Structure formats: C-alpha cells, structure tokens
C-alpha cells in the first residue's frame, strides 16, 4: 500500500500532528515503506480465525462500586501548562 500526499495530510490531521511542507515527502516515503511491510499480513487467509485481543483472554476485572480515590486536583494541576481557578486553560473555543 503506497500513500500519496493527500493521504498523509489526512492521517496527520486525524493524529493532530502538524506536518511542515518540507516533512511531507520523507514522511510519505517512510510511512509507505512501513505499510508495505505490514501488507505481508494479507498473504495469509484468516477468514476462519477469531481475533485475539488479550494473550490470556481474560476479561476486564470489576471492582465494588466504592469511592477509592481522593481528589488530587492540586497535585495534578501543579504540572499543567496553564490553569486558573482550578480549570485548565486553552485558547478560546467559542467566539
């Protein structure tokens, strides 16, 4: 599977990664090379095989519905880029 510039721009947007004009050719070539490696999977017929999500095939453990965590807001916001009045600040979203 070989990608073109439009594909790479779309993927980068979905991944929320800015790509400069200069980066696009090398990124396109390297991603295409990786997809070519991945495409070797298509050689094998897996129509009768069930997917495996967890090696031990265990299901998610459930716990009692009890409060176990205390509020850590101050500790967590101490390492945030910008906060105000207990809130994380981002550029204006709604005009």
């Amino acid at each position, binding site marked *: 599977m070989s*990608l073109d510039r439009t*594909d*790479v721009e779309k*993927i*980068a947007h*979905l*991944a*929320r*990664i*800015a*790509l400069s004009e200069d980066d696009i050719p090398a*990124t396109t070539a*390297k*991603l295409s*090379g*990786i*997809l*070519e*490696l*991945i*495409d*070797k*999977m*298509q050689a*094998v017929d*897996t129509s009768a*095989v*069930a*997917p*495996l*999500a*967890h*090696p*031990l095939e*265990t299901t*998610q*453990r459930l*716990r009692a519905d009890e409060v176990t965590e205390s509020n*850590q807001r101050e*500790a*967590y916001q*101490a*390492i*945030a*880029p*910008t906060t105000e009045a207990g809130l*994380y600040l*981002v*550029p*204006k*979203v709604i005009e």
Partner: protein
Amino acid sequence: MHEKTLAELSQALQNKTLSSVELTQHYLKRIEQLDGSLNSYITVTAESALEQAAAADARIAAGNATALTGIPLAHKDLFCTQGQRTSCGSKMLDNFISPYESTVTQRFLDAGAVSLGKTNLDEFAMGSSTESSFYGPTRNPWDTARVPGGSSGGSAAAVAGRLCAAATGTDTGGSIRQPAGFTALTGLKPTYGRVSRWGMVAYASSLDQGGPMARTAEDCALMLQVMAGFDAKDSTSVDQPVPDYSASLNDSLKGLRIGLPKEYFAAGLDAATSDAISAAVKQFQALGAEVREISLPNAELAIPAYYVIAPAEASSNLSRFDGVRFGYRCDHPADLTDLYKRSRAEGFGAEVKRRIMVGTYALSAGYYDAYYLKAQKIRRLIKNDFMAAYEQVDVILCPTSPTPAFKIGEKIDDPVSLYLTDIYTITANLAGVPGVALPAGFANGLPLGMQLLGPYFSEARLLNIAHQYQQVTDWHQRAPAGY
C-alpha cells in the same frame, strides 16, 4: 564493589562487610566518572539515593532487611517516580515531574532498594537502539561506537557498564531481551500481567510488560521477586500466587525438553550467533536436556502484525499528550487545533510521530478490518503456534536478534530495517509468553545473545534453566574493558 553481582552485594550488606551508603557513593562516583562515555542515565538522583541508602543501613541494622535492601538500582525512565522527572526520553515530558509513583518502583522502595536514577530509552520505548531519545543516544560499553539495543538501552548500558547493580526495563517487542543480548546481560520479560503496568507510561498496552535486567539469572530472580504480583490498580494484572523464584534455581535440567524453532535458524541469522547457540545446545544436553527441532510456522507474520497492533495502541495511548494538562505546550497557539497539532509536532520525535500516524491510519474508517482486525487474527495464529510447540517441548531456545550490536547511525534512517532487528523477540509479546535472554558467547568482542521462551507463568523454570547454564559457562562474568 561493582564487580560483585546483586546477590553477592546483598550478602555483603547483610553481613555488614559493606554499607549501602558506601556502595551508593561508589556507584554515584562511577556514574560521574564513566557515564559521559555511555549516556545511560537521563537523571541521576544522588541526594535521594544517599537518603535511601542511609535508611537501608538503618533497616539492615534493625534486622528487618529484604534481599534488595540497600541495593543501588536504576529505573527505565518510563516508570513514574513521584517528585522526579519521568521523561520517557521525550521532549514532550522533559518538564514532567510525576505526581505519583509507579507500582514497580513503589515495590522497590518498600523493599528498601536504592534508586540511583532514571535511565535512557528510545522515545516512549519506540525503538530498538536507544538512538531516538531526546537526550541523545546511549552507547554500548562493549564498543561505544555501537548501540546498546533498545528500547531499554540505558538500563542495559548502566548494568553492563557497572553503573548500578541491576535495573528495570520494559519489553513491548523485545526491549528487555534484545538489549540484554547486545550487552551480555540476563533480562527477563515476564508473562503478560505478571508485573503491574500501573505508572509505567503506556506504549502498547496489550504487549507492554516490565521486567528485570541484571548480570545473572540469580539476580533477575531476586529482582522479579519484588516486581511480580497482583495489583488492583492495573486492570490486566493477573491474580496468581508468586512463587519463590530463587528456590528452584538449582533444580536439575534432567529430562528438560528444549525446542529449536527451525524458522529462527534460517537465512538472515548471523553465523557467530548460530554457532554460539549450537554450543549452548551441547551444554544443555550435557546438563541432561533433550533438544529437538520444532516449528513456529507463522513466525514471519509477527513483525507485520506487531507494526499494526503496537502503533494502533500507541496512537490511542499517546493521544493524551495534547499540550493541555501536562507536558510540552507550543508557544502562542492560534486556536485549540493549532495547540494540539503544534504541541505534538514539536514535542514528539520522528519515530513516535511515524508510529502514531501508522496507528491512526490502521484504525481509521474503512481500514480497521484490513489492518487491526487482521493483525489480531494473526496474533491468535502466533499464540496457537506457541501452544502447539509447548505440547512437544518445555521451553524454546532461539537467538535474541539476528546480529550482534550494530553501529550507532547504521539503521536509524531506515525504520523498516530497524524493525526487522526484533524478528526473534516480537512473537513472545504477541503471545504474551515469558522469555529470558542471556549471554551465549562473544564474536569480535561483541556479546551474542540467546533467549529461552516458556509457557505462561514459567518464569521460575526459565530462571532455573538460565542459572544452570550460568553454572557451567562464564560469559555472564565478563566485563567490558574500562568499566
């Protein structure tokens, strides 16, 4: 002091022929003198290490020490350590002071171990050479022009360079075993779920597993004893009793059935590594083991499937790095989308961005069945291969990588060639089975690695086999010149 193994140091501390403060000062001095040539540490925590050492000496004097009390260790810098930078080798987390402690590092604190600092790694553990770190490449103490392997290359170089007694690593596709092979160490990737992932920054959650890197199997047993066990904070932690890993080290190998997967001894394997493993086979036979050829017929599909599953999970896990709550934020964002896009473009390195984009593509609308679902089906085929093999043999013996350590810069610009270096290690992660890597010889002064893979929860048996091999060989006792 640094010539001694962890087990020997533990004895010396318990006998009070050595204090933890003396030992810690010794390692800190060595780091200061020698790590300039290796770049194995990102952060050295000298002050807290000496405090921990003093507390350890008091604990030993009080008579309630564990085997790890007072032992100077290093932790891969993706285990969160409270109040200390936890960088993951990334600019994204260069300013991240962890507000909490990972389960693994907490267990070592509880055991009284000393932490000398945090070791270098490929950015977010995505790599096989420790060259993609924001903090520069780590060098191999056996030849500083070469890579130590990766992603746990900082831990490997620090242990091999005698800059700590042992270290923690993590293994998502071979990141403990491949660097152990490149640096003549013993390293164990436990069964998926055996060691808690809580506080271990996630790369590919269904594959990631922490484990020990040390000089001997005996040392790995002591380390794993602390690391292994159920943790309610990790939703995939397995609630099974933890055996005494040291108790069975001296069990006999008589009647042990070892399988050699023919697919792993085909074209592409370096001749010296192949010869070293043939010699190891003779040693194992002399110890009473039976060796036969087996097949893992779907092995060649492991790398393609891994490079769908791991990037897909990474693209999801790394979406949390958005410049809002912690980590790097770009200057002067024009709007929220610009904040996300530029923070991620500037904060992540090239390989991390590539894997996020591969994963994003594999999970995007219209491609899920062809990529992620297909890879999960192949994952089952690979697991089935192992289950069939373990009906015929007890363990599987194979190389850790196709060649010894390669040169710094040799593969970094060609991601696919770098991916192929993990050809022998990735299958165990996909199947979730444990594996121990250990030195099997040297060629031109470079270590050659081999690994033993076992069924689920066979860590004690794997360490037993590795220990017995190390009783009749001395590869693990060799030290790199100048360290």
